[in-house]
């Protein structure tokens, strides 16, 4: 299983701060699409993704036990 964390307003979109999802073997992009379709996460194009506190690319593959975090870039200043 994998722990998936939602930062900032993504929490409000999904409705929870974290989810347990079976994502082993999936790419980051595939997980993004799943979360978009199943849990209503918007703007998956621009959301940043970290695996185990390290930024990941869309084609990185998720391993058993990895913690994935989705972080929205924000622009306010």
């Amino acid at each position, binding site marked *: 299983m994998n722990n998936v964390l939602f*930062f*900032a*307003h993504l*929490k409000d*979109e999904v409705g929870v*701060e974290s989810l347990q999802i079976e994502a082993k073997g999936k790419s980051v992009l595939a997980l993004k699409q799943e979360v978009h379709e199943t849990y209503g996460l*918007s*703007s998956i*194009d*621009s959301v*940043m993704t*970290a695996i185990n*506190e*390290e*930024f*990941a*690319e869309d084609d990185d593959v998720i391993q058993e036990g990895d913690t994935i*975090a989705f*972080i*929205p*870039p*924000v*622009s*306010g*200043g």
Partner: protein
Amino acid sequence: MNDRYSRQLLFSPIGEKGQSLIGRKHVLMIGAGALGSGNAEVLVRSGVGKLTIIDRDYVEASNLQRQQLYTEEDVKEKLPKAIAAKKRLMAINSEVEVVAMVADAVPSLLEDLVSEVDLILDATDNFETRMLLNDISQKHHIPWIYGACVGSFGMSLTIIPGVTPCLHCLLKKIPIQGMTCDTGGIIAPAVQMVIAHQTAEALKILVGDLDAIRTTFTSFDMWRNQYSNIKVAKIKDTGCLSCGEAPTYPFLQQENLTKTTVLCGRDTVQVRPSTVQQLDLQRLSQQMKVSGYDTKGNPYLLSIDLKPERVVIFQDGRALIHGTKDLAQARSIYQKLLG
């Protein structure tokens, strides 16, 4: 004011040597809103040699809730933020050279300025300008510090050309945003938190303590008590067009920059003419009044109430169209007024 920096001199990673370095450095601050005013205050109190502030905006009542340096009087006078910031900063530390520019941070202006700049501090409210700063940083080998916030959430990243990945590596393209100050609001503690991170990194860079620089992307949520550091080294992209092996600095190219922009946190469009103007605001004001428009002004800008829209025109030809988010409508209103 001999004793002014005594507590900073006692902090050993700065000391006499570091203070002397800080006093010889020139920082360029893009934006004088919440992050800009707070960062500027810390840098000026800390004794930076020179601070150049570029901001295109003027002080409004809704700024006062979180934007240090500004007062109710500045709102009443509709002072441009850069001007109001400088006024307060000079009262705080008259030993610092503060240069205030009421202008939009376009490539040509930045290219002219950066030859003598040691550090760029990001305090803008949009990603287009940040991508531009990022290209300027890479092209001229000047570090910059990204900072941003919305609601109770914020983030910061230190970018050192030749050492760290750049913002273009991280974001790939200008993100489509799901959340702005307009939809999520902003609270002052989130602003203060970003300022704490940006100014700590700024002091490290100014004294040359490169080993101390933060190598992670920091983000936090002050209401939900979350704090996270994410390593960025792995995303450095040798093919990045901003910091890779064959850079083209795409965001310095005019065709990649829009002329109309919806401003974060407001029902407002900025319209920027393709060439910088030198308007005679007093004459323009007379014309508008003759045409029956309700106008107010000061030496820096002219405000025209079109009900429901309100247009504020600056000397360089730039205008803010309040009361709309429609780019085409904004451009239309602008052209109706200024031809």
